[in-house]
């Protein structure tokens, strides 16, 4: 009889849920959008998805093998992470990039912190942000049907207007973007499946999207305008907002566990995403909003301890005083988090001060070196754009008044050094202008413009630019080569000129062209 007795504490029954079933449900929910992505972008995107899934599972098994842990690849969580990473990749990215992303997600974000459930950020999102920073060029070049173009959201950022066609395309998925984020309707379908299967609660997506809408309505600047509705819909269905709110923000390990906490979290990331989208330079606000939210999750959890059943604060006190006065003592002792909070606050402030001081010190130490380096870089650029020159002489003149004598409007321009280029024998071969346009989409664009004695452009080089990745940041590649050999007043094609604007980055193109024009005007007029 003894062989039949299993002894354990109650309860003796379990429901039939399992971690694996949950992960599979999320994978199933992602399938429509993934399949559509493959249909839209071709077989190569399928290769990316499969590679990501295999790579993630491989890295998980590898790490667990080497760290002597039990291999838990069969719980499908690594496969899910891989699929999410794949769906966040542009459809024509070189395969090594997502593989690096998978390694980062699985090893650095997930396994090092203790594996499943212990990651402090959503691994797939962390990998996406990591790749966005490391491979900005690849991660932000999108193309659809062989035509490279900006994503609808980036267009909205650039042009500030939204159209009905864009919205329809966004909903159906007929837009460029990452493999998985394009079709809003299929993503919502997946979300509904997850809610029905009780895998996720709709609290986070709803509060997130709700807050986001409220924020963009108030601060988006389109309230009361004719394209208001279209603007809102483009914001809502564009970019990673849907996949982010349904599949990323609801990640168990990195979102709060109580309902109250989830509401706070949804509102918080909704606000952040709205801020990043409306005021930020990058169209990728969703990812950063969620990983920032991930990091305050433990804090939210800490302060959203739900009220236990039947425990009423006032009543509790009453029953305490009714029994024994001595009982008050421990109760008070436990209710002394004030000193704990103060302690935490002090610690955080001192850490901030120390970190700030350290940063300041490093800045002071390296300031000279950095400015030296910058000077060298500038000089190197002079030589590069002015072929044949061996020497540069600084010209001293009131360039501002020269420029103001021009009939043209160059926008907000700041003129740095103007130098005359001389060859070995001392003859003037041209001139270079270090010029900054303050009209860039993301701030200042500093460039050097070189021209020969006939005021024909010999070269343009961008020294400092901070435009939208994938759009304005393509200036060096797309627009700079066009100036060479041209002279006179240049203009963009849409204004009847010959310079082709960077696709989706009119503002950047205009700013750069204005700066080049101003430089040419100075070069042709400074010695008159």
């Amino acid at each position, binding site marked *: 009889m003894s062989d*039949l*007795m299993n002894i*354990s*504490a*109650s309860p003796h029954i379990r429901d039939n849920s399992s971690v694996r079933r949950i992960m599979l449900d999320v994978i199933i929910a992602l399938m429509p959008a993934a399949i559509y992505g493959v249909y839209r972008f071709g077989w190569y995107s399928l290769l990316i998805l499969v590679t990501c899934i295999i790579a993630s599972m491989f890295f998980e098994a590898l790490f667990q093998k080497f760290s002597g842990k039990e291999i838990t690849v069969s719980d499908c*969580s690594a496969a899910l992470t891989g699929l999410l990473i794949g769906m966040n990749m542009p459809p024509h990215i070189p395969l090594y990039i997502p593989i690096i992303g998978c390694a980062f997600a699985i090893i650095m974000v997930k396994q090092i912190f203790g594996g499943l459930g212990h990651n402090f950020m959503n691994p797939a999102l962390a990998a996406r942000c990591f790749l966005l920073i490391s491979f900005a060029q690849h991660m932000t070049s999108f193309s659809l049907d062989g035509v490279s173009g900006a994503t609808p959201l980036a267009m909205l950022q650039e042009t500030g207007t939204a159209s009905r066609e864009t919205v329809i395309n966004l909903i159906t998925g007929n837009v460029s973007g990452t493999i998985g984020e394009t079709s809003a309707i299929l993503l919502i379908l997946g979300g509904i499946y997850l809610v029905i299967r009780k895998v996720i*609660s709709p609290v986070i997506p709803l509060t997130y999207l709700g807050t986001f809408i409220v924020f963009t309505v108030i601060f988006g600047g389109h309230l009361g305008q004719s394209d208001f509705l279209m603007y809102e819909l483009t914001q809502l269905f564009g970019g990673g907002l849907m996949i982010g709110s349904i599949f990323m923000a609801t990640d168990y390990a990195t979102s709060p566990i109580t309902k109250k906490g989830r509401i706070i979290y949804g509102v918080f990331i909704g606000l952040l995403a709205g801020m990043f989208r409306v005021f930020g330079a990058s169209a990728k606000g969703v990812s950063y909003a969620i990983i920032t939210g991930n990091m305050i999750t433990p804090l939210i959890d800490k302060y959203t301890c739900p009220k236990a*059943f039947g425990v009423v604060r006032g009543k509790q006190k009453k029953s305490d005083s009714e029994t024994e006065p001595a009982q008050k003592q421990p109760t008070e002792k436990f209710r002394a988090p004030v000193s704990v909070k103060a302690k935490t606050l002090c610690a955080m402030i001192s850490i901030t001060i120390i970190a700030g001081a350290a940063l300041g010190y490093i800045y002071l130490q390296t300031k000279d070196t950095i400015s030296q380096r910058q000077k060298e870089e500038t000089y190197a650029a002079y030589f590069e754009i002015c072929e044949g020159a061996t020497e540069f002489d600084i010209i001293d003149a009131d360039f501002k008044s020269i420029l103001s004598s021009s009939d043209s409007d160059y926008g907000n321009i700041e003129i740095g050094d103007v130098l005359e280029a001389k060859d070995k024998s001392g003859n003037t071969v041209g001139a270079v202008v270090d010029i900054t346009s303050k009209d860039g989409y993301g701030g200042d664009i500093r460039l050097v413009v070189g021209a020969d004695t006939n005021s024909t452009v010999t070269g343009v080089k961008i020294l400092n630019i901070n435009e939208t990745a994938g759009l304005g940041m393509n200036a060096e590649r797309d627009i700079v080569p066009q100036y060479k050999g041209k002279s006179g007043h240049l203009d963009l094609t849409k204004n009847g000129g010959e310079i082709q604007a960077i696709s989706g980055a009119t503002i950047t193109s205009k700013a750069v062209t204005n700066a080049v024009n101003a430089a040419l005007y100075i070069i042709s007029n400074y010695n008159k």
Partner: protein
Amino acid sequence: MRFFKGGVHPYDGKELSKNKPVSKLDAGEELVFPMQQHIGAPAAPCLKKGDSVLVGQIIGTASGFVSANILSSVSGTVKALEPRAIDNGTKVMSVVVTNDFEYRTVEGFGKDKSYEDMDRDSFLEAVKNAGIVGMGGANFPAHIKLAADPEKIDRIIVNASECEPYLTSDYRAMLERAEEIIGGLSVILHFFPKASGVIAVEDNKSDAAEHIQSLIGGQKNISLKVLQTKYPQGAERMLIYAVTGRQINSKMLPADAGCIVHNIDTVCSIYRAICKSIPSIRRIITVTGDAITNPQNFDAPLGMSFREVVDAAGGFKTNPQKIISGGPMMGKSISSLDIPITKGTTSVLALTKDQASAKSSNCIRCGRCVKACPEHLVPQKISVLAAERQYDEFIKWNGTECVGCGCCSYVCPAKRPLSQEISTARAKSIQLLKSRK
């Protein structure tokens, strides 16, 4: 319908024994009466080895404020006074009686009595003498609950919700002993004139509810309350909330909410003790599970061994992996069938598959435990605090409010032993709080 937040809906397995009428079992050769069948101090044995015993004779007397008498269910002789194993795995001092199969009773046993001219003290004394304790499994001595100030009690709730899966004894009692239930409730209400009686039944037992309703008829102070079927609807705090809307916590008694809650079998026992002069010597027990040949309900004498009732149900048809005394959510798994049926034994459940032995994996923070917890706790968090022995934090996170219903463990997809970790730490934390007083 008012219902609590949280809870779970496990497979209820009641169809196995639901339609089997209660059959009366006779005792075997040897009966074991542990002196600890209730919460509180163990009873003191009042017989010596070799003494003769009658049916209904007190063989252990209550030895403290919270304690209860133990009575013999057979006549015969005391074979031994020795520690015997009980369902929680410990050995407690027990009186072992050899049955002489003559069933000689004590004087006045089974005599009809009227409670109308009884005063309050003799009523409580009679309940105490009959050794009646809560028969839903918690085993709290009934006379202490009934000693509450009648001025402050406005509800007497009969807990017939039977939310534990597999159990059908309360259901059968409602169908077969409805008169006793209403009779017992009337007795209690007689001594609590300001109170009204409520019989609370889950809505999956609607036929029993209808039967009770038809018997209540026009009685004004007794009503039937149909509750949502959800585990743990029968937990005292949840039940009081469902019936009255009042909430109590671990530091309060039902009386603080103006309620007294009695299990249905306890009410029957009170009726028999007061009106029929039959003390607590038998109870209804469900023998069920997928490993039992003929799952059914028995009216079994206390002191009988588990083995005898299992055999009476045809024995095992397959080898069980787990045998449980009580329901699958809060019952105790047992290592041997050679233990006696006590006042709190609601069922013997034999399962062919032990779902609790599943391997646990990392918590994925899905939050299902938080959603399932009827006490609104965060089992995920407090189980970690429990495992780390951070008792102060555990108390701050209301860990001591846990009722041990097991919902968190039940729903956990990672199969973590949440409820088990919490109940261990809860006991330690309560000790800690007491030591600080």
